[in-house]
């Protein structure tokens, strides 16, 4: 248990350091960090499904997208959500993400493994198709430009203030998901990941548990979308395209599925590499691809699996070994 507390402390220190250091940097870094945090919420929601429940969703961009489009459409067509009502948009964004997941979940959750992946992919493409073709609402390929960020006393147009706001959402989301995965419900998801049949025999309606998890992940996806729309000031079919879903999935795998922190580390690395590498070399995508391949080949537990790997190597034969392994983050 003690090692768990140390880990929490480390994460807390890292977050505090992050929130102090980033605003001191240039506006480029602040915007990059804000984008990464908004996307990080999406990545954590993917981890909830992939890492904790064992469902590899390939359509998480759909919930992200509807959250983002909702924000943009309300702001440009109804001038709604640019003042105090921004908080209402946040709630609506979460609800529309969760609602869409509730609908899609009816089709997807009954399937397992690759079938689940294919169905979520197909449903995600439906949303992309709508965004692309429904010109009157979504602006088609051009997307929607937001005229500015909300201002309710706090002017979110200020990069630093907006950074703090997104950080707040990010930290609260992380805390909520941390509690969730350790709750009876969250542990039941881990049980389903490990052996669904046994869970049924133990009295769990596993379909219902997976369905609820799917809806929760959709809700967090919607929240991430709302923040994303305001971070970029622009929403287009690019936001809901398959690549967004795949990116989120790969970030989780890169950082380490089933750790939450891994999802955020994966997000940070991909965003960092993409921004910095792309200014340096034209072949940056190959570098990113190489990182993915190496991770999957040599670090099946992701970057978060490195400490336990090292420990295993150095402490082999020791009695302590199995105990330490047992308290690894799950």
């Amino acid at each position, binding site marked *: 248990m003690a090692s768990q507390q140390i880990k929490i402390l480390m994460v807390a220190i890292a977050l505090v350091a992050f929130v102090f250091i980033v605003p001191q940097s240039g506006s480029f870094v602040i915007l990059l960090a804000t984008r990464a945090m908004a996307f990080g919420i999406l990545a954590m929601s993917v981890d909830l499904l992939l890492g904790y429940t064992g469902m590899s969703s390939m359509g998480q961009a759909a919930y992200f997208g509807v959250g983002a489009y909702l924000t943009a459409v309300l702001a440009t067509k109804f001038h709604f959500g640019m003042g105090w009502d921004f908080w209402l948009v946040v709630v609506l964004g979460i609800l529309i993400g969760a609602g869409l997941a509730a609908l899609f979940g009816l089709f997807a959750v009954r399937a397992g493994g690759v079938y689940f992946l294919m169905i979520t992919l197909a449903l995600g493409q439906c949303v992309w198709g709508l965004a692309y073709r429904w010109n009157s609402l979504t602006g088609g390929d051009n997307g929607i430009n937001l005229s500015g960020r909300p201002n309710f006393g706090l002017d979110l147009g200020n990069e630093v203030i907006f950074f703090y706001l997104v950080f707040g959402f990010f930290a609260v989301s992380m805390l909520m998901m941390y509690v969730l995965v350790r709750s*009876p419900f969250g542990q039941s998801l881990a049980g389903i990941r490990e052996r669904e*049949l*046994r869970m049924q025999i133990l009295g769990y309606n596993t379909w219902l548990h997976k369905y609820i998890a799917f809806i929760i992940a959709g809700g967090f996806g919607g929240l991430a979308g709302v923040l994303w729309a305001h971070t970029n000031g622009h929403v287009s079919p690019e936001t809901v395209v398959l690549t967004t879903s795949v990116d989120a999935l790969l970030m989780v795998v890169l950082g380490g599925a089933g750790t939450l922190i891994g999802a955020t580390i994966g997000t940070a690395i991909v965003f960092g590499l993409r921004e910095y590498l792309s200014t340096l070399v034209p072949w940056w995508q190959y570098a990113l691809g190489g990182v993915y391949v190496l991770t999957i080949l040599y670090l099946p537990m992701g970057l978060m699996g490195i400490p336990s790997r090292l420990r295993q190597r150095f402490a082999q034969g020791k009695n302590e070994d199995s105990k330490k392994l047992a308290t690894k983050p799950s």
Partner: protein
Amino acid sequence: MSTDTQMNGGQTTASEVAVLELKGLCKSFGGLQATRDVTLRIMAGDRKAIIGPNGAGKTTLFNLITGIYPVTSGQVLLFGQDVTSWPSHRRTALGMARTFQVTSLFPRLTVLNNVLLAIKGLRPSKFVMWRFLSSYKEVYDKAHHLLEQVGFLDRKDTEVRNLSHGEQRQLEIVLGLASDPKILLLDEPAAGLSSGESTEMTEFLMKLDPKLAILLIEHDMDVVFDVADEISVLHFGEVLETGAPEAIKKSKRVQEIYLGTD
């Protein structure tokens, strides 16, 4: 109803409801008839065993009772209620539990969390999302108590995949008992155990609450003869013979099946 009473030798009175009752249960996989017209009745506290050669349909029978496979025809009754079309988790809620022939634990969770999940299975608080699982004092104490009984307390924080096979087999039964079942279906509890371990297992099974009904599948005849009061022999999905252990031991037909002198 009257025919069933006759089958049980007329020992049961009308007021007693069978814990588990199978009526003419059949299951086909395509052309293969895995279970043929199995009728069985288990009362509270009964200790019954099902034996039979490999492929006789023993585990299939368990999968029909627990609702993993849909039945082709026939009925499954739990406490007098027809549960034939119920999903597994609802049957469990009535007081049924089972273990698996191939160990089915949660390998990457700790021993304690395995047991906590098993206890939580029938409680509404399994849906709670805003409290840590470890903060449920009463559930925790119960898990503690269960682990103490089997001497697993010192390993409660070990991930299950790091336990030995024998320990996993024991934990398999602990998980079955965690929901306080009234009937426990044991699918080869001694599978893969050494003779010493399987003696331990027998002692453990014999210490269980006498009111608990047990239906046991087992190949290890020492375990079967010690634990069971009545044995049914399954062959090609059909109940060939039912009787006391002594009678089964002497039965010519059973010997033929097992030794293959046919």
